């Protein structure tokens, strides 16, 4: 139908009357724009039979055009409906989450339906709540404890500003030298201004500057043995964007307490190497050609993974996509961070296979900003996190037992 309609239109435009055609050069939307003209007066009139035929052809063309327009109108209507449906589904999803799932969290959170819904991305209105629930509060941190830690942090800041008073509090710190603490405080100040600078909300004078400062400061008092480590400011910032201050602190402390995050933030190098080695097991299995290419170029995974894992992609992916990675990370745990990494490699496999060491490293440490959520998630879907019937945790555990072997790609 579509084809016929189009051919009808094109045949009409090959009319020998060039001047008429020129008038129609603006490409009529439909054939109704054609005027069924009589022959000019200086030419003999059309025979009735021909005129009849032309009229009939004209009417057919009009009918075609009407049909086509109707079809287009229906298509537009469908698109509008789809968009409405999509918006509605977000609205519905938000409703489903807030009215159905959240009140019955314990019984529903691991059901098939919820897990599917979860994968599609959490509606922003419930995102913080779901993250909080999924991360949990194993550490039993209360709002009160947060306030105590914050008060202590404030004391220290004041002491730091007035160094004469510092002498007294100095000895209380477990395992942190004065220089370290000083560096930590300085670093927090410096890093806050470098956290999502394009959003302009964490910088000095921005609405979330003090909140970010408070959470990071409180954490150094809550865990002086860990202290402030670069990269933390990004994690705290993403949490602040999705929940209120005390909840963000609770989620922050619990999140960092997870084995993978603890290994990285304490820079337990041998354990980090074990994580990289486990990653490479799945890398080789899922993307053998690219794995071999990286190996030939002596490109070890730490070059790109360190940044991705430390900041949970919040520095490397656009923020909306990073939040969707966080969604599923909260559902599936650390394994999803590595699955995402493989999804990214898979998405760019063709480009990467044609690059040398330097270009691969540059590409992966500065990912393109036009990356699409749908593409990356459908790429992640294809990554299989089963290696010879072993799951991520089992592979990791096996490697931990025979630790010294380390990464096959890393040279030591």
């Amino acid at each position, binding site marked *: 139908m579509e084809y016929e309609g189009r051919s009808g239109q094109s045949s009409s435009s090959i009319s020998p009357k060039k001047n008429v055609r020129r008038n129609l050069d603006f490409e009529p939307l439909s054939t109704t724009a054609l005027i069924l003209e009589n022959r000019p007066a200086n030419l003999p009139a059309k025979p009735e039979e021909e005129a009849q035929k032309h009229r009939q052809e004209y009417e057919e063309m009009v009918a075609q055009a009407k049909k086509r327009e109707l079809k287009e109108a229906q298509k537009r209507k469908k698109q509008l409906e789809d968009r409405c449906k999509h918006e509605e589904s977000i609205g519905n999803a938000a409703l489903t989450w807030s009215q159905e799932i959240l009140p019955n969290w314990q019984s529903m959170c691991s059901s098939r339906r919820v897990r599917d819904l979860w994968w599609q991305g959490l509606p922003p209105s419930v995102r913080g709540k779901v993250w909080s629930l999924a991360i949990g509060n194993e550490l039993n941190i209360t709002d009160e404890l947060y306030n105590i830690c914050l008060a202590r942090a404030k004391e220290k800041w004041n002491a730091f500003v007035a160094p004469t008073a510092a002498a007294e509090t100095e000895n209380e710190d477990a395992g942190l030298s004065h220089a370290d603490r000083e560096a930590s405080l300085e670093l927090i100040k410096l890093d806050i201004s*470098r956290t999502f600078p394009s959003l302009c909300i964490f910088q000095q004078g921005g609405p979330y500057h003090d909140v970010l400062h408070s959470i990071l400061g409180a954490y150094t008092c809550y865990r002086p043995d860990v202290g402030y480590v*670069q990269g933390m400011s990004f994690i705290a910032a993403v949490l602040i964007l999705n929940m209120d201050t005390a909840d963000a602190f609770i989620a922050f402390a619990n999140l960092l307490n997870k084995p993978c995050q603890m290994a990285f933030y304490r*820079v337990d190098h041998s354990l980090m190497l074990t994580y990289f080695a486990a990653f490479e097991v799945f890398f080789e299995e899922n993307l053998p050609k690219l794995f071999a290419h990286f190996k030939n170029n*002596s490109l070890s995974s*730490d070059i790109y993974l*360190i940044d991705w894992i430390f900041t949970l992609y919040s520095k490397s992916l656009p923020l909306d996509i990073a939040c969707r990675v966080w969604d599923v990370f909260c559902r599936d745990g650390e394994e999803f961070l590595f699955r995402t990494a493989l999804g990214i490699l898979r998405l760019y496999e063709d480009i990467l296979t044609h690059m040398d060491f*330097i270009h691969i490293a540059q590409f992966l*440490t500065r990912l393109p900003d036009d990356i699409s959520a749908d593409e990356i998630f459908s790429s992640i879907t294809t990554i299989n996190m089963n290696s010879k019937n072993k799951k991520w945790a089992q592979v990791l555990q096996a490697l931990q037992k025979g630790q010294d072997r380390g990464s096959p790609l890393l040279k*030591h």
Partner: protein
Amino acid sequence: MQVPWNFRFGIVILGDSSVGKSSLLHRYTEGTFDESRQSPLGIDFKVSNMYFDPDVVIKLLLWDTAGQERFRSICKSYMRNSVGCILMFDVSQRQTFDRVRSWQQEVLDYVKPNPMFFVLVGHKCDLAVGRQVRKSEGDALAKKLNMLAYLEVSTKENINVKETFETLTRGIYNLFQQGKIPTRGDWQGLTVGATVQKESPVTKKSACCNCG
């Protein structure tokens, strides 16, 4: 595929935190001074080409190491794949100068049996007040520790930035020409690429800088 460089040197920049490692590298590769730069997580790197004589292209793989002390263990694997080291201290912080000797020892122990060549950089020499290390001390220490040179550098004022990288690269190149640096298949510190084309200045064009 044609290899656009004749040699590739791995260069690592080391020194105590906040002596200005990243800003020196940034000034060298981007040509600007940026005070609010993010300190690298673990490790960061830049690439730059250097042209000699005028038909020798040396590709420099420049490894920038983390500011925070605890990231140091990560940086070690990158020392192994470097032939040169820019060891930095801050002329206004005496203790960063005092740590130079142990830094060098640590690096040499770690990269054994591969060689490593050093230049010593006294950074922030633009500071008129607050200097705690004299130039003569830097000179003497570099000599004593068998380093290629001592340079006083200011990233802010763009003093001796280019010279630092050139001195180190030139020094390593000369030592290599004298046969003092062996290359090995499993060592990425110094890699030989395309043979030097004596009469082809075109190489220079085809291998323009690709950092960024």
